[in-house]
């Protein structure tokens, strides 16, 4: 049976994580299971899980390793965990969250501690960088969101070095370009609204998420957090007040397809 894994600890982040996990599980049509891998007791976590009506277990292996083992379970579709224990905790996210995100090749929802409860998913923001890899990585997310009748807002930010060469008549140009952009990079172009900005991607993702009232931000990423990599993911995790879905390049979201690559639609020329 497929399930969403809610990784909780004894912090105040547990409730938002459980709430987000329930919302995601409803979307996917799967169960939720809460896991705890702390080495210093788990009564708070148990209470939070019970309050949310979510089954709870403690990982056999303590600590991060235990969480990774749990997340890699074949029945786990995706993992939901807290960004940090407290509002003033580390940015972009706590150590456990970052390590888990880097280690597990599954979609991961990182939930800020101050997200309004209960977590509801009505509108999802999908930043697309105009590459096939990102589009394919997030395609399953968009498909699922559209099927579930969520508002899907795609966002493309033109960085200054990648501005279009031409912009003839703006009253038509955007319409034509946007239609084609969605056709290229979204599975259901007719159901997706496109927002565009010019500038620094991370800043605009947060601004637009706030502006359109997104309940979740979906990002494709390479799971690389070395210096100079994943600047957008870092910035969004650090500043987002909504859950952030991180989908490793090549991993999908649909039940049963958690670890399946979602690329390779194109045949060789």
């Amino acid at each position: 049976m497929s399930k969403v894994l809610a990784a909780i600890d004894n912090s105040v982040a547990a409730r938002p994580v459980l709430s987000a996990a329930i919302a995601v599980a409803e979307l996917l049509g799967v169960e939720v299971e809460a896991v705890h891998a702390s080495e210093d007791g788990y009564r708070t976590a148990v209470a939070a899980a019970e309050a949310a009506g979510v089954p709870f277990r403690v990982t056999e292996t303590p600590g991060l390793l235990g969480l990774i083992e749990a997340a890699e379970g074949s029945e786990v579709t995706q993992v939901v965990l807290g960004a940090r224990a407290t509002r003033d905790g580390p940015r972009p996210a706590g150590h456990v969250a970052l390590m888990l995100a880097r280690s597990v090749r599954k979609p991961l929802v990182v939930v800020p501690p101050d997200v309004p409860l209960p977590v509801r998913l009505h509108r999802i923001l999908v930043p697309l960088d105009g590459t096939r890899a990102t589009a394919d990585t997030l395609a399953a997310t968009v498909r699922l969101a559209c099927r579930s009748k969520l508002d899907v807002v795609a966002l493309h930010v033109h960085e200054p070095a990648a501005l279009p060469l031409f912009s003839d008549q703006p009253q038509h140009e955007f319409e034509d370009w946007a239609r084609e952009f969605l056709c290229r990079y979204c599975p259901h172009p007719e159901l997706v609204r496109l927002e565009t900005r010019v500038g620094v991607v991370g800043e605009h993702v947060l601004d637009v998420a706030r502006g359109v009232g997104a309940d979740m931000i979906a990002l494709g990423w390479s799971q690389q957090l070395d210096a100079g990599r994943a600047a957008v993911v870092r910035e969004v995790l650090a500043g987002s007040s909504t859950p952030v879905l991180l989908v490793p390049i090549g991993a999908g979201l649909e039940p049963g397809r958690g670890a399946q690559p979602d690329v390779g639609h194109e045949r060789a020329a």
Partner: protein
Amino acid sequence: MSGTHVLNVDGQLAARPSGPGHLHLLLNRGSEVFAVSRGGPEVVERRVATEDEDEALNEAARLTVDRLRAHGLPAELVSQRLNRRKIDLIPEPEWADPPKARMAELLTAVEARLRRSGFASLTDVAAVTLAAAREAGLSDPRITSDVKHVEIGLTDKSDSARWIMRHLLLDGIAPHDVLIAGDEFGRVGGQQGSDSLLLVPQVAGATAASVGVEPGGVPEGVIALGGGPRRFAALLDDQVRRRRRGELPLRNADPEWIVTVEGFDRTLERAHETLLTLADGRIGTGGAPLVGNSATSPRVLAAGVYDDEGAESHLLACPNWARLGEEADPAGPLLRTLDLRTGLLFEEAGSRLRSVRFSSLARPGTVALRIEENDGPRLERSPLLLPPPRRQVRTGESAGRRWMSVAGKHGGVVAAAAERVRGAKPRRTERFAAYESDPANRPDPARAVAGLRAAEDAGFEQLLREHRRTFGRLWDGADVRIEGDPELQRDVRFALSHLMASVGESGETALGARGVSGAGYRGHVFWDTDVFVLPFLAATRPAGARTLLEYRVRRLSAARAAARALGRSGARFPWESARTGRDATPSHAHLRTGEVIPIRTGELEEHIVADVAWAAACYLDWTGDEEFQRGPGRELLVETARYWASRIRVDGDGRGHIDRVIGPDEYHEAVDDNAFTNVMARWNLRRAAVLAGGEDAERASWLHLADGLIDGYDEQSGIYEQFAGFFRLEPLVIEEVAPRRPVAADLLLGPERVRASQVVKQADVLMLHHLVPDEVAPGSLAPNLAFYEPRTAHGSSLSPGIHASLFARAGMLEQAVDALRLTSRIDLDDLTETTASGLHLAAMGSVWQALAFGFAGLRPQGDALCVDPRLPEAWHSLEVRVRFRGARIIVRIEPGSVVLTSDAPVRVLVGPARAPVTVSSSGSVRVTREEMRWEEVES
């Protein structure tokens, strides 16, 4: 093709064909062409020697015979046929008429006699003959030998080959469609075989085969079949069988004439479909694969048929005829090839499915498809006509044919289609469809059905033949040849091919910014049509240009009403136009910055009024169409002039101003005295004033207004100020600020910064130097180009092509070629990321203008055509074909010279000094650059 005469050939062949094909006899060693029909052979063309040439031939023959005899070879002059003299090298009874089977024996006998006379081979004899011919005064003698004879002629089979290839090209038949069969390609006795003369450069790509004995082997590239006349007949029979089976025509492989899309790229698929659009001036069909999937976007659009009104009006999507079926995911190989010469789209899905389709230029609205399916799972077929997505359709049957119609708020389109199977293994199917469109009413299905039945009656081969012929003739009058840059050559032809296919020749053509290649820009008509596309047509295909003008002529009343509504006189054409001719410019736009901004071009971009007038004048200058000048052309020029006369504000000093406009540089809005607008208005007033008719007082007032109109020119610097206050803006040179150009500077810097700076979107002042060079100060191109080009972002796809032309005029050829190359790739490389919404026809038009106006320096001046070429070093030659005042002219530019060819007398002014040259009917003149002297080299 034969060296002998018609009585001989026709006596043996006795062919009296009555079918749809043609039989030509090219005889007398290239001097005669006959067309054979039921009534027998009739002369099509005959080269007749002049008296001087005849005398020279006689003298050459006499000299040759004398010299051979002097060596002891008893040669005899045996015939004096048309344009040639034949000398028998072995005038002995035994060898009077040897059969071809004794060729080897004959050769031995001749060579023995030659050796006895001190000649090593026939080559020596040919050398003697050639020397004699030249001595006799023949400039280009043709020496041939069939072993027994040596001949001196004015023509040979190479002339036949050139004639037939030109004739075939006019019919749209390219070398790769040609099979050359002969029996004498290889060398005989040291002399090249007579059929090898057929292998002229013009046949490169053709298949050549020999059925002869060929004792010395065949030249490289010629297939040695042997087998003699029987094999020759078998070859012809095989061709007939293929035709009857309905085989697909061969796919062109000439890289200068094809655009190929290999494989299936989900991301770029829709852009590829646009590149592969087939159009006929009335309807356009995207090049989606016949078997589609979710990434494809099959579409058919009809020119001028819109849905909705005003700014919301958009091209109506039509029923689709070019879909066989669907598959979830594309699988297997896929190759699509658009033949630019013929407008044929070939599609090969491995060995499973091959097809060819076209949209008939000969019968606009008629389309045809031939499919060849081989073994494999049978495709589940879609219906013959598919409704456009999310659109209500009506369907029905008439005279046994299915039809489907769609309707917009006013007009509509109806299509009828049928299919027939021609064979089982492989399964061959032919599909025909006919479209009827009407911008104002729902068309009668019976008309589409009648068109379909006519297409079925004609059959695929006939439709193909007439379509190819129409395209072939268009290319004959409009091709541009660049020797030395094959990639650019192909890209230029890509542009020209689509321009040709986008415009019809009757009624009106409502040519939107993307034509019928896509729904982009909602099909609205801009100055793109008048200023960028029309010149190509005016100079190559006047009837097509006239249909563009007719669109404006039929909307004069709407333009008058627009002027009246503003309290003005004359006609005010709208910035964007659709069915009615009323302004269709949207009121706002989303920017990529996320902002929503008001759009003011509909209110302020008034230079469109003069642009329409300029288009009419451009057509008149190239064609001299007096009827148009007396009628609708005059009306366009006069009514637009009246608008300007009422629009200009005259200040207390008597100076005229045009306040609050947008020039071509749309980064700056509501500016006063935009140089482009003012100078175009001035030109409009002056041009209208010189037309006959009208009131003298009105014409005088126009001239007075024109003379007083501010144009922003500063005599000291030689620079025009783009608009009042432009020089006071932030002196920002975008060339130094932008990471690259072209760039959408409004996005890079933000609209506010751009408005406050000297950043220019596209040629504005410089557009004057391109459109009306006689209206700007002499010598002002260089300083204005130096000032404005570095400040130009080229953020409009209309900009680089015009700059290519201007760079060329200024002699900056490297920049000119770069800009031209960029323009030619706008759609091929999807540089705008909007090619999926249609081709950038204006940019394509600017490609032609850069070549014709910029590099070739063509420009009408009264009844003369100016030619002032600039040839880049990397190009070996540039050839531009135009029609000027009814004459078909070929301008061939080579390093240091120009060759002018015309089919009618024409006056040409060459070079910056305008050296006058008269080209006579069917004559050629070469003009050399040094001292601009000219010498006639052929007539």
